[in-house]
């Protein structure tokens, strides 16, 4: 067992240890044990950083991969299936080590931040315990080398997000939000499980490496449509966890959780899990499945961006921007811009965590005011928060010199390249939606910065009755702060333990962390270390009835042999170059694949190639879009040339459509929830009248029979017993009288008997 594997298992188990300690002993520890959580996460991050250093910096090999597994369950020889084993294992490659470092770092910062934000909460210790189990679950997903253990940790993430979102469970809205999140995730998970079963039914293994080796060897026994279905079903898990349309509805409501939790769940971990999972199964997705994924991602990005521009709650804006950015990542995976999507996953994790923690600082300083309409002018009071929040905002908007610019542009370039390769008019919709969303992103983030930090304080404008309402809410959630009335207290900068995470995260949102060239992420270490893996599914040509023709003609000879041996990552720099938009290699691959049999492979190569060509186009268009969006925000909110309220009135239907989140909640309420209720009522009726009827009928019959049985028992069986007893009793009473105890009476009896004998004897003699 490789020492890095051992260390990664230690990293995995440390947060679990934190959970176990804190859930049982937090009341016995000083400070309710928050130092345990922070300390353990600190060591977990230190080890992860060491792994990251060893793997990404020292090895610097795109194909780095070490794995270890053991047989978890051996079910022996199952009839009809063959030998059945379920294995568990750990895999470490570049992606894993980057994710490990990212998750533990953000979790550590969230722990640290929470010591300030959650101070005085009555369930303070339990909060840190929940953060621990959440981090454990997420690390489990990151390290898993097979679908089965990913599914286990996937559900654990679902559970722990349920616990954290509903942390203030006394609030009805929080309790509703946690249920909503859990149920929406369940819908996705069912699909994911079905996808896993499709693959399992074919290969009898859950291991990624074995599944891909089998796929590459063409052992998939069903039609190509089944493979597409498996891909889309697995993607459904991502739709639930990463809040893609149509299951995105849970994420904005999940803002009911404590704000640091929002940072953890909605930036680094849970929503990233979905994208990470799609990246893990990327090689088995067929072209059709990728099309579906790309369109869902593009639509989600666009829809969430349009909703975000009208929201008033500071956290809801960020929530919808998260949904929108996740849409970008999914779009990126869908168009085959694998490296770019994962790049965006990491950069987004940092700047979005910074934004959420910054909004938490604002909410904390504003005494639990979340409505941006009543904020304003905070830049003077909270300079640190202002600076970091603005930097993260620019990264989210995708302004050059930020990390967000690098990753978003790489995705958009991939999208343009994809549209060029596919050549169909409808495929241009994807980059179009992407660019338009980029503009909307810049607009709503500009709006948010202006409303929160600039201008004059608008606290006094807040209607009084709403004030009481909000005060009541704060009361329910934060007893420690409920007695301060916020008008009597000024707004102050937050303490160091909440400021430090903001600064660290903001520093990680700058371009030079990832790439020396502020305009090209492809030159950075990230895109070099996370190359696009060669596919293992050359899609079949259904008309010819061939099952998996492309597998026998892989993209590269070098890529073919590791694929057969279960190694998914490409083995040479050759492939790394492909991933970094190396046009020449892609063209060569293109030519080779043309004579071959794969549809998916040349498509990927072409996307990469076209992505290179489209790169500068993407930079220009997106920069223009970002500037356009920001200037629109300036025009509307700074210079006041366009009055937002009048505009809203002028396009009232559109405004309401956006404000009410496209009415998705109402649509779901009217269809699925009402439908479920009607179904439930029908089932209740069935239960009461039919099932209960049958049960009651049976019960009546049983009672009748029991009555008969009882009578038989009482009169026949008991009668016989009692009669016997009575007889014996009576006989005994009679015979007892003979037993006088007096010797003389016995003598008399003896005489009588002797006399009787003689009489009897002599009468017989006479006869």
């Amino acid at each position: 067992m490789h020492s890095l594997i051992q260390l990664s298992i230690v990293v995995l188990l440390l947060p679990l240890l934190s959970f176990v300690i804190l859930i049982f002993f937090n009341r016995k520890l000083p400070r309710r044990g928050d130092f345990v959580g922070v300390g353990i996460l600190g060591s977990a991050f230190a080890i992860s950083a060491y792994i990251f250093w060893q793997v990404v910096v020292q090895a610097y090999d795109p194909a780095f991969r070490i794995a270890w597994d053991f047989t978890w369950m051996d079910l022996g020889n199952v009839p009809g299936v063959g030998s059945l084993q379920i294995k568990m294992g750990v895999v470490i490659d570049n992606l894993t080590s980057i994710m490990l470092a990212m998750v533990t770092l953000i979790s550590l910062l969230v722990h640290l931040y929470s010591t300030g934000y959650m101070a005085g909460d009555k369930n303070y210790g339990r909060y840190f315990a929940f953060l621990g189990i959440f981090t454990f679950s997420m690390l489990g997903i990151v390290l898993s080398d097979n679908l089965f253990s990913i599914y286990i940790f996937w559900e654990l993430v679902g559970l722990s997000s349920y616990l954290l979102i509903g942390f203030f469970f006394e609030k009805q809205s929080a309790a509703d939000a946690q249920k909503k999140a859990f149920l929406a995730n369940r819908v996705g998970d069912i699909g994911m499980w079905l996808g896993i079963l499709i693959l399992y039914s074919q290969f009898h293994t859950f291991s990624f490496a074995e599944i891909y080796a089998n796929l590459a060897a063409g052992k998939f026994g069903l039609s190509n449509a089944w493979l597409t279905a498996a891909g889309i079903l697995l993607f459904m898990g991502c739709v639930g966890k990463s809040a893609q349309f149509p299951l995105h509805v849970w994420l904005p409501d999940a803002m009911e959780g404590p704000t640091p939790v929002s940072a953890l769940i909605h930036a680094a971990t849970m929503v990233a899990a979905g994208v990470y999972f799609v990246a893990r199964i990327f090689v088995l997705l067929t072209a059709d499945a990728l099309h579906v994924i790309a369109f869902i991602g593009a639509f989600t990005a666009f829809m969430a961006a349009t909703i975000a521009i009208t929201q008033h709650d500071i956290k809801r804006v960020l929530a919808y921007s998260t949904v929108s950015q996740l849409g970008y990542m999914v779009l990126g995976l869908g168009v085959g811009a694998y490296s770019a999507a994962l790049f965006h996953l990491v950069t987004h994790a940092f700047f979005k965590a910074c934004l959420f923690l910054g909004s938490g600082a604002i909410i904390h300083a504003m005494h639990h005011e979340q409505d941006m309409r009543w904020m304003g002018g905070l830049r003077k009071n909270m300079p640190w928060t202002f600076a970091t929040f603005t930097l993260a905002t620019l990264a989210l908007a995708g302004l050059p010199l930020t990390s967000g610019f690098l990753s978003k542009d790489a995705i958009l370039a991939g999208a343009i390249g994809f549209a060029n390769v596919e050549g169909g008019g409808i495929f241009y919709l994807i980059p179009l939606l992407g660019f338009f969303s980029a503009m909307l992103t810049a607009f709503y983030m500009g709006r948010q910065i202006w409303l929160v930090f600039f201008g004059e304080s608008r606290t006094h404008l807040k209607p009084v009755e709403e004030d009481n309402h909000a005060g009541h809410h704060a009361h329910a959630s934060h007893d420690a702060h409920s007695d301060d009335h916020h008008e009597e207290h000024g707004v102050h900068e937050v303490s160091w333990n909440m400021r430090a995470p903001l600064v660290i995260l903001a520093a990680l949102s700058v371009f030079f962390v990832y790439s020396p060239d502020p305009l090209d992420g492809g030159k950075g270490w990230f895109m070099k270390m996370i190359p696009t893996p060669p596919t293992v599914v050359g899609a079949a040509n259904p008309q010819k009835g061939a099952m998996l023709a492309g597998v026998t003609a892989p993209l590269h000879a070098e890529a073919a042999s590791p694929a057969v041996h279960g190694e998914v990552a490409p083995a040479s720099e050759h492939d790394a170059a492909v991933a970094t938009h190396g046009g020449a290699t892609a063209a060569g691959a293109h030519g080779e694949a043309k004579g071959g049999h794969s549809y998916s492979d040349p498509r990927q190569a072409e996307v990469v190639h076209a992505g290179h060509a489209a790169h500068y186009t993407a930079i220009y268009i997106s920069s223009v879009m970002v500037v356009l969006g920001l200037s629109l925000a300036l025009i509307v909110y700074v210079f006041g040339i366009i009055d937002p309220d009048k505009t809203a009135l002028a396009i009232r239907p559109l405004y309401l459509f956006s404000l009410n989140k496209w009415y998705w909640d109402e649509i779901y309420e009217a269809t699925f929830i009402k439908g479920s209720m009607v179904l439930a009522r029908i089932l209740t009726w069935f239960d009461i009248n039919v099932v209960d009827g049958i049960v009651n009928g049976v019960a009546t019959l049983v009672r009748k029979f029991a009555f008969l049985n009882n009578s038989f028992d009482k009169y026949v069986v008991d009668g016989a017993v009692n009669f016997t007893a009575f007889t014996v009793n009576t006989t005994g009473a009679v015979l007892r009288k003979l037993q006088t105890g007096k010797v003389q009476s016995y003598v008399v009896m003896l005489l009588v008997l002797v006399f009787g004998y003689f009489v009897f004897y002599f009468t017989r003699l006479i006869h």
Partner: protein
Amino acid sequence: MEQLTTIGLNHYLTISAFLLGFGLFAVVTRKNAIVILMGVELILNAANINFLAFSKYNGEMQGAMFSLFIIVIAAAEAAIALAIVINIFKIFKSVDVSSIDSLKE
């Protein structure tokens, strides 16, 4: 007439039967344990008379020998029985057999 003047076997048996009757009567009806013992002696002697009478009219000595044994055994029996009666008296402070009915239990 000769029947009346000559003592024959029947006379012996008749006396013996009477003796037995008296003995039984004493055993069954008397309350005093010592009187009951006396009744038992009467019964034994009734048996002795029977043995001797049959011995004489049979012309053999077996009956006489038997009656000698019975006398010896009766003496032993009387000794043991009187010892028992004394013990009974010690335990129950009475020799009234009608009041001694602990056999019932």
